[in-house]
């Protein structure tokens, strides 16, 4: 694995982990879904970077699956989770 790729992957992963602070802080459920969104995009990028390694090209297909399915959780959230106020008063 080339050093720039390794460094970039670690850096992106750290971004994701720091983003988890927002899940803890909220304050609304929408904020938390936003972090799931961040995870999706960053995860796809990490997979593309890892997939640039010789012999690991299958990871690009994993990235493709992630990219296409990332929206399902958000659509499920919008369609199913009642946000009505319960987060506001916290």
């Amino acid at each position: 694995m080339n050093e720039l790729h390794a460094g970039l992957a670690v850096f992106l992963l750290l971004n994701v982990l720091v983003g988890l602070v927002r899940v803890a802080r909220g304050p609304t459920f929408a904020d938390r879904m936003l972090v799931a969104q961040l995870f999706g995009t960053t995860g796809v990028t990490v997979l593309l970077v890892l997939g640039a390694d010789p012999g690991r090209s299958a990871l690009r297909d994993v990235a493709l699956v992630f990219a296409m399915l990332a929206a399902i959780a958000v659509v499920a959230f919008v369609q199913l989770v009642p946000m009505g106020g319960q987060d506001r008063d916290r």
Partner: protein
Amino acid sequence: MTPRTVISAALLILGGAFFLAGTLGLLRFPDVYSRLHALTKADNLGLGFVAVGLSIEAASFALSVKVFIVWASVVLASGISSQLIAGAAFRAGVAPAGKAPPGEAP
């Protein structure tokens, strides 16, 4: 170091910088709407730069097409889902920073 590796390395680093900007926005901005704005824009650009960087590095047409499809689906999905999240937050009465909640008198 060929010019190609220099360009691709520069693009990868630039992409990383955009992700950093997005994460900072997620942590520091005052309300869900501005956080949404910062995060989706910066991250989609970050992914774009990384994708172009990797394609230049590999210099393979088939690979570039696949990477492009990945990028296009992310941009599409995250653009639409950020709109959905913002809409859901607004309807639920989450107030933009410094403003009264939607639907209430200021």
